[in-house]
């Protein structure tokens, strides 16, 4: 059995359950004797809660109790991955539309819903709600967060959580033949995983078990242990494969609430959100970007100056990290002598934003790539050429402490060729091209255990969450090649902190590289043990035995690892257990705390046709090319890239929250908030990979999954601009927005 699995596309691990309905998602799990929870929310963003009368609700048959802030420890326990700012339940004041003020536990879903309707909340709508950046930064703005929660932050008396400043060189000292400047906006959009979020908890006497749709079970375990003052060993987190995550399920939300409710009830409780409720709990940060750049007359960048205000919502969640990571890479993959970057994390009375595929890069990339097109236009240069001219070359240091880790020019040229860059265009058609760059994980810690069982099958334990990216398949492929065990005979175990060793998290497209390395090392551990067993068995020197893809190469013959293991373990049987660890340490000198493990580099090119009468944009052709190092499973890589591209087309063409003046989301749910359906696809779509095996992961892989939505918007908008001549600075490019821009241009000329 030689290295056949890597680079092929075996059937997906967990695929059988997914096509038969047997896959158990969180909402499919029933715990004996469980109570159902329904949240009580107010139809207002910012309100003072005067009192909550639960008596009528609690007197309903089937209702066990109603939980409010008054039933929780005082002071209110708060949590968060960066700041301890999110309360278990609203405490005295609601800070966003949909923030729960009470939770009803009942014997049935019906009773819980009825109970929720009968909870009487006496509240008063508060003026001064902060729903946009301008209001947040006004000198007399209401403070969204209590300054006493802000520690010694110099910004504690403002709505700014932090201000990140990065850069190099002196932007004022650069000589430029052309300076361009503009402002762009990126709206709030939501993850819209088809599986709504869900949470369950059950007391175990001396501890607690928690079930969650979470992407980071070990982070949840840590947060719960701290909050409940339990040892980690007494907090068991079950994390069934999430039904889509996209970042929205990384960070705990209502797990602490259900945990406190389960402890109070002495019984399991379960809260499964509706899709509408999910809309009010997770979103991408909106952003306002001011950007300025200088160029020589030949098109070389002389400086870039980027200032981004991210409106992150009521609690910081992981958004401050979104701001720092995306700001650090704001200038993109270009060689620029001087750069100044400011990124602000600004709180508001809106849904807390969190990680969302691309982690801030789609917002900044939208502005940067649009501005580069403007420069090309003014310089009379080709938009592809200006990018190729400025693109950092392989191994070139382009950001302090980071170097280009791929042949990015090859990626861009491939995309240009695929879209037919430079070919004549029919009327009302246009093309756009854009490049995106995102840092992979800056730190990481993954452990894996692999068991080679006596019959020659294997079990892989990996704490990654498989939410559709296909991590199960990837890990099975790695183990298959290293141990010589067919993929179908490998089971991958995830999602239970009591069984599977620690993994930092499933984010930043890290798992194939970091956990993949841990799995590979666990297999190396097994290889070493079997080699030692074989040396004794066959009477040869251990050093004389080489290992090659599932086989021991003895001086006189080859023996499969599995065969050697069976001979050595006979007659009792048993197994060989290997452990692997992958650690990417912190680097205290790096502004982000660590270098990027790899970059996701992507070039997106689009061709559109615009209906000049209606403003409707038809995607004629859409191409994304990513530098993936090596495509470990080509089918899954394409599936990730296609999916990311379609998600990117969502925020480009149709997705955005619509607010009323009072900060209420007016288009909650699937009817009023549209995502792409099979009828909205580009007429032609291509996702391609550049494979030079130059990544840090097993076999030279890099992370994939986010690249194809990093710069969807600027590529499409550039195509619209070429087709129509109009520049649009706000998303999405709905027919109405395009039509209005066309009218304005007509009136202006």
């Amino acid at each position: 059995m030689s290295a056949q699995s890597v680079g092929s596309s075996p059937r997906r691990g967990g695929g059988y359950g997914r096509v038969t309905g047997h896959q158990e998602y969180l909402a499919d799990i029933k715990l004996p004797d469980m109570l159902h929870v329904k949240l009580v929310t107010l139809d207002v963003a910012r309100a003072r809660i005067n009192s909550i009368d639960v008596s009528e609700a609690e007197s309903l048959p089937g209702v066990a109790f109603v939980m409010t802030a008054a039933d929780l420890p005082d002071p209110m326990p708060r949590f968060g991955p960066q700041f301890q700012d999110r309360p278990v339940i609203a405490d005295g004041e609601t800070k966003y539309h949909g923030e729960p003020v009470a939770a009803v536990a009942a014997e049935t879903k019906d009773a819980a819903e009825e109970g929720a309707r009968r909870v009487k909340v006496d509240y008063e709508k508060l003026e001064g709600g902060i729903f946009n950046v301008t209001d947040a930064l006004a000198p007399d703005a209401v403070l969204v967060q209590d300054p006493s929660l802000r520690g010694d932050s110099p910004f504690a008396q403002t709505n700014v959580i932090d201000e990140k400043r990065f850069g190099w060189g002196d932007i004022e000292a650069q000589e430029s033949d052309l300076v361009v400047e503009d402002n762009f906006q990126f709206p709030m959009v939501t993850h819209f995983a088809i599986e709504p979020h869900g949470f369950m908890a059950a007391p175990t006497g001396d501890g607690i078990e928690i079930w969650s749709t979470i992407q980071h079970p070990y982070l949840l375990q840590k947060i719960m242990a701290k909050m409940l003052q339990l040892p980690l060993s007494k907090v068991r987190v079950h994390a069934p494969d999430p039904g889509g995550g996209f970042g929205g399920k990384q960070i705990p939300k209502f797990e602490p609430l259900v945990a406190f409710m389960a402890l109070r009830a002495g019984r399991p409780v379960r809260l499964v959100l509706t899709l509408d409720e999910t809309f009010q709990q997770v979103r991408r940060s909106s952003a306002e970007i001011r950007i300025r750049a200088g160029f020589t007359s030949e098109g070389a960048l002389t400086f870039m100056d980027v200032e981004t205000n991210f409106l992150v919502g009521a609690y910081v969640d992981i958004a401050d990290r979104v701001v720092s990571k995306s700001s650090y890479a704001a200038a993109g993959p270009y060689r620029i002598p001087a750069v100044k970057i400011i990124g602000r994390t600004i709180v508001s009375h809106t849904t807390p934003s969190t990680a969302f595929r691309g982690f801030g890069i789609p917002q900044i990339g939208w502005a940067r790539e649009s501005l580069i097109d403007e420069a090309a236009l003014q310089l009379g240069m080709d938009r592809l050429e200006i990018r190729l001219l400025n693109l950092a070359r392989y191994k070139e240091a382009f950001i302090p402490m980071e170097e280009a880790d791929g042949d990015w020019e090859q990626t861009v040229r491939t995309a240009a060729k695929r879209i037919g860059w430079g070919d004549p265009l029919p009327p009302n058609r246009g093309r756009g091209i854009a490049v995106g760059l995102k840092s992979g994980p800056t730190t990481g810690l993954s452990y894996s255990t692999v068991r080679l069982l006596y019959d020659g099958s294997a079990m892989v334990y990996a704490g990654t969450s498989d939410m559709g990216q296909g991590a199960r398949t990837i890990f099975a492929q790695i183990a298959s090649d290293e141990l010589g065990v067919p993929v179908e005979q490998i089971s991958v175990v995830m999602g239970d902190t009591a069984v599977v060793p620690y993994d930092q998290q499933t984010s930043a497209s890290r798992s194939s590289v970091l956990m993949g390395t841990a799995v590979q090392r666990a297999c190396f551990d097994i290889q070493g043990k079997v080699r030692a067993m074989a040396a004794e068995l066959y009477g040869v020197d251990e050093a004389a035995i080489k290992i090659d893809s599932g086989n021991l190469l003895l001086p006189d013959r080859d023996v499969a690892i599995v065969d050697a293991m069976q001979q050595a373990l006979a007659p009792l049987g048993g197994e060989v257990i290997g452990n692997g660890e992958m650690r990417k340490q912190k680097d205290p000198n790096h502004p982000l705390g660590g270098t990027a493990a790899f970059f996701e580099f992507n070039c997106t090119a689009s061709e559109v046709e615009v209906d000049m009468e209606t403003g409707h944009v038809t995607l004629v052709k859409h191409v994304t090319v990513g530098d993936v190092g090596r495509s470990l499973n080509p089918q899954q890589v394409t599936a990730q890239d296609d999916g990311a591209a379609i998600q990117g087309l969502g925020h480009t063409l149709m997705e955005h929250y619509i607010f009323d003046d009072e900060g209420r989301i007016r288009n909650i749910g699937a009817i009023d908030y549209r995502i792409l359906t099979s009828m909205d696809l580009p007429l032609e779509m291509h996702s391609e990979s550049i494979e030079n095996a130059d990544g840090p992961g097993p076999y030279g892989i890099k992370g994939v999954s986010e690249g194809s939505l990093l710069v969807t918007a600027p590529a499409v908008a550039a195509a619209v601009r070429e087709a129509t001549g109009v520049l649009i600075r706000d998303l999405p490019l709905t027919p109405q927005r395009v039509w209005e821009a066309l009218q304005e241009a007509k009136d202006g000329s």
Partner: protein
Amino acid sequence: MNETLTIRTTINGRKRTIDVAVNHTLLDVLRDDIDLTGTKECCVVGECGACTVIVDGRPMNSCLMLAVEIDGKEVTTVEGLELDGELSALQAAFLDESAAQCGFCIPGQLMSATALLAENPDPSVEEVQEGLAGNLCRCAGYEQITKAVLAAAKGVPR
């Protein structure tokens, strides 16, 4: 307490007599009362298709049907697609094309596709896209799903 009615129905070939609350949807009853959790719940307003089942040959959003409406009718859910322990051609094609990513929309996609192929055994790309337009997927680019349906239509061997 909720008022209940007794209904007689056939689900995945098995005759059943069930007491259902008159205000419960078919989706509620499938998932909560008889533990057929393969059918998924997402939008509950008939927009996402995750809850699609086949009722007397027609694809229906089970979140929009009251359970009492299936009295005397025949229902097929995703759990009923396997025949004698073998995947249907569509299920196998979904696996081969890697059409299922997180998988949450897949039961609905499969039921719509099954109904489509029963009606139109040799659909064009456009007909597949139209037939599945009511089934949202947030993971995929729909292309693998479309490909899988076309492959199944062409008779991928069972």
